[in-house]
């Protein structure tokens, strides 16, 4: 049982409230929670190069895109149809199920719109 709260960017008050309540409503759908965990753990790999708050300081943002687009992009890197040494190596290590899980996870992440 765990939070799906990776890469927190909700307003601080909401986070505090959620944390004070333990944050962890037992998921109605356990397989859904497992998939979010899988997506979150793969997204953690992405976060070593891509900011997951939606900001782009030279490496493109990968949140807020729809899941199908993300899967298609990763597939293109994997097949060598799109150039990119780093993304090719990353995508080669992921399965189709990994693509789906991380794409759904990233597509659900909100952009932080506060200027920083």
């Amino acid at each position, binding site marked *: *049982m765990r939070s799906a709260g990776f890469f927190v960017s909700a307003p601080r008050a909401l986070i505090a409230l959620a944390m004070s309540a333990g944050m962890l409503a037992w998921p109605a759908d356990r397989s859904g929670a497992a998939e979010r965990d899988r997506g979150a753990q793969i997204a953690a*790999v992405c976060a070593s190069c891509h900011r997951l708050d939606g900001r782009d300081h030279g490496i493109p943002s990968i949140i807020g895109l729809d899941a199908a687009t993300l899967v298609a992009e990763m597939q293109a890197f994997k097949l060598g149809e799109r150039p990119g040494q780093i993304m090719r190596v990353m995508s080669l*290590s992921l399965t189709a199920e990994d693509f789906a899980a991380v794409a759904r996870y990233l597509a659900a992440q909100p952009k932080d719109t506060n200027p920083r």
Partner: protein
Amino acid sequence: MTDCTRRTFGCLVGVGCVATLGARVARAQAKARVVVIGGGVGGATAAKYLALSARELEITLVEPRPRYTTCFFSNLYLAGLRSFASLTHGYEALAQQYGIRIIQEPAVAIDPAAKTVGLESGGSLSYDRLIVAPGIAFKFDAIEGYDEAATQTLPHAWIAGPQTQLLRGQLEAMEDGGVFVLTAPPNPFRCPPGPYERASLIAAYFKRFKPRAKILILDAKDSFFEQDLFQDAWERHFADMIEWLPGQFTGGIKAVDLKTRSIKTASDSFAAAVANVIPPQVAGLLAQKGGLVDASGWCPVDPLTFESKQQPGIHVIGDAAMAGDMPKSAFAANSQAKMCAFAVAALLTGSQAQSPHLFNTCFTFLAPDDAVSDAISFKPGGGTIKIGDISLSQVGENEQTRREAARAADGWYDAFTHDVFG
């Protein structure tokens, strides 16, 4: 996050949640405790990802320095291409946004039987799981005359901070026509391309401001990582400014003379205007004191959880760990820290650690506008960690590719340090 928040709100107004909340409060009083020693890239990443993956853990990060200076990208500072401030990062976000308790003092002892960490002030911290990320230490007995005090004359600048500033000051003060000597250590050491990138970027600085200066690399090895790329770039950008002497020529770096600022090899003595001695390395001191190292001087670990093979219940990540084919790099430390955090969270909370994904990516500058990017994936297997897929840059890539890599490197630094400290 949106889903979770909505669900939590739903729970707060629902009658059926009261009992659940009560049970949770009771459990919260007996939170599992994870202590992380070392606030470098490995330790900070592990603390953050533990906090993100399991709110029911009590996480303490022990780090004596108030701010961390990254060794990666410090070669750009040495060349005058980046500010020192841009390399330094604090722990405020880890404390305030992720609820991590920061203890700003040195950890001086580990008691694996009592599961406690001793602090310099005399206090101690109890843990259920301990993650140790002590980085590197130098083998000061390996080069005669090169001890802790000698680093003030001949800086190593291989643990970033005042040493890096000292070396930059010496380079700025050096007269045009001087010889800068850099000694490169034997394997394994932190950041395999680092010494050679340093020579490249300092050459770029000299080319602009001290064009008659020379750089001499005295190597303990006979070859080095991406040697073909570096030597091609040195020829293209710096003509004969950089000379590299392999171990088979030098016979190894044997001694230093502080008065004459000389480096003595088995066969010769080289006087320097400025010398940067990067000594042979071992795991950080606390790993040695905690019984985590083997005869090699590094820490053997389980390839899936990074749990020490010497001390159960203690995990070692980053440069101090002996992680199979993975290099000692900030990226590797960050990657290991995440896998370790997921594994520790799973052990303590019953959550599920997914299949491990271990990577190293490296942006290396051959000149300010000529950079390469490499990527390697790794797979645990056969009790160690092996290379999976690999993509290395090649000699002869076009200029635009290299310029784009240099620009991407800046973006990577921003995203990566945000991932670790933000």
